[in-house]
């Protein structure tokens, strides 16, 4: 029996990347070895470092190598506004697209009883103690409009109501540049019921 070569191990390991199958993994491995060893070495080093040191922010549960992430540690952010998102990647999207200057809270998923994901798994106890301890005046829910997302939103809204915090949810509707004809019925119905005065 031949021992598995290092090259094969590398190709196998690369397949853990999303969207990378055996063929792409092989291409990436050969590219790094033949054309960009320096880049590969740097990637390996940063990868090892990141996997070891990046943890969750104590306050908002996003990914950060510090105990408090950059946004939570920034005194110029408005602590009265708290935006709840599902994933850390959504913070990046909101930061790039909007001028929101408040703070965030990352759930890491949605309430999904059939998958055993309950309030504890989403850190809702942490969120609740923030509502209790911090001067939050508005809680903005940026949670995806699925059935489980809306269960999550209502659960959070119920608990925020007990702390007297105003709860809002981001609008759902027709995407910019989208044509009404091609928008699915559910979205169109929401867009219609959430119409605004001009």
């Amino acid at each position, binding site marked *: 029996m031949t021992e598995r070569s290092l090259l094969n191990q590398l190709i196998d390991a690369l397949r853990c990347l999303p969207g990378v199958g055996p063929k792409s993994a092989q291409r990436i491995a050969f590219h790094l070895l033949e054309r960009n060893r320096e880049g590969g070495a740097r990637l390996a080093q940063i990868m090892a470092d990141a996997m070891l040191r990046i943890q969750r922010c104590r306050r908002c549960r996003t990914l950060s190598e510090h105990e408090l992430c950059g946004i939570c540690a920034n005194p110029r952010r408005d602590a009265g506004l708290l935006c709840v998102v599902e994933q850390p990647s959504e913070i990046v999207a909101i930061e790039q697209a909007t001028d929101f200057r408040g703070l965030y809270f990352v759930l890491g998923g949605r309430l999904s009883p059939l*998958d055993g994901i309950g*309030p504890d798994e989403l850190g809702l106890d942490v969120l609740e103690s923030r509502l209790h301890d911090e001067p939050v005046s508005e809680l903005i829910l940026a949670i995806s409009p699925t059935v489980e997302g809306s269960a999550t939103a209502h659960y959070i809204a119920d608990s925020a109501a*007990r702390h007297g915090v105003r709860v809002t949810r981001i609008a759902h509707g027709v995407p910019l540049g989208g044509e009404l004809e091609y928008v699915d019925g559910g979205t169109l119905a929401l867009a219609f019921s959430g119409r605004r005065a001009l």
Partner: protein
Amino acid sequence: MQNPVNPVHFENPPVVQGFQGFVLHRRDYTNTSLLLEVFGSGQGRFPAIAKGARRPRNPASALLQPFQPLWLAVVGRGEVRTLTRIEGAGRPISLQGRALLAGFYLNELLIRLLGRQDPHDRLFDSYQAALAQLAKADDLDTLLRQFELRLLAELGYGLTLDREADSGEPVRADRSYYFEIERGVQTAAPGTREPILSGSTLLALARGISLEPTQRHEARRLCRQALAPHLGERPLQSRELYRRWYGDLHRIEHEPA
């Protein structure tokens, strides 16, 4: 020229065209697809893959959610089939709060108790009717108990609640009884250690009439007791969530599921 080699290989996999269905549960599968647990009319419960449903701007992702009536077609011979057609068959059934949790509870019961690919046509109709009622009913207890009893009957474990098990005597509203798995309804003698069921609760359940607030607790306990041997050790997650949401949050005794 016809290829003579292995003709089986060229046979198309079986296709099921056009049936009504609901997604009971969905989870992400690979980068762009969904792995669904589907309950289809005439099809029973089966797993299916919706390829590419999570690609941006694919309307299937919005449709393939619990409580959305669907019109589906599938292909495939293995256990996991592939959806080839996904259309909405009406508006999603809008459930909020307790009704939403009750909906999750129905889905969890079906996933836990139905064997795969037994057609269960009558149960499909009951499920569809129950969801429609959940959206407007405030008496969740009666609705859930009736669905649980129908589910048990469909599985071949129907309960006889209007007659005493041993004597066959009709249950009387003003008498006390208790329920034993395997045996059924028994008259409660003084000092019976089992939890007592009033005759009126048993009759309300048997006749499918609305449960009085005082009967709800007894009825819930009875159904729980009857479902327990089929559910096994693992607790129901939707029940747990209900307890967390409405038990811890509002300190409310009522718990429909």
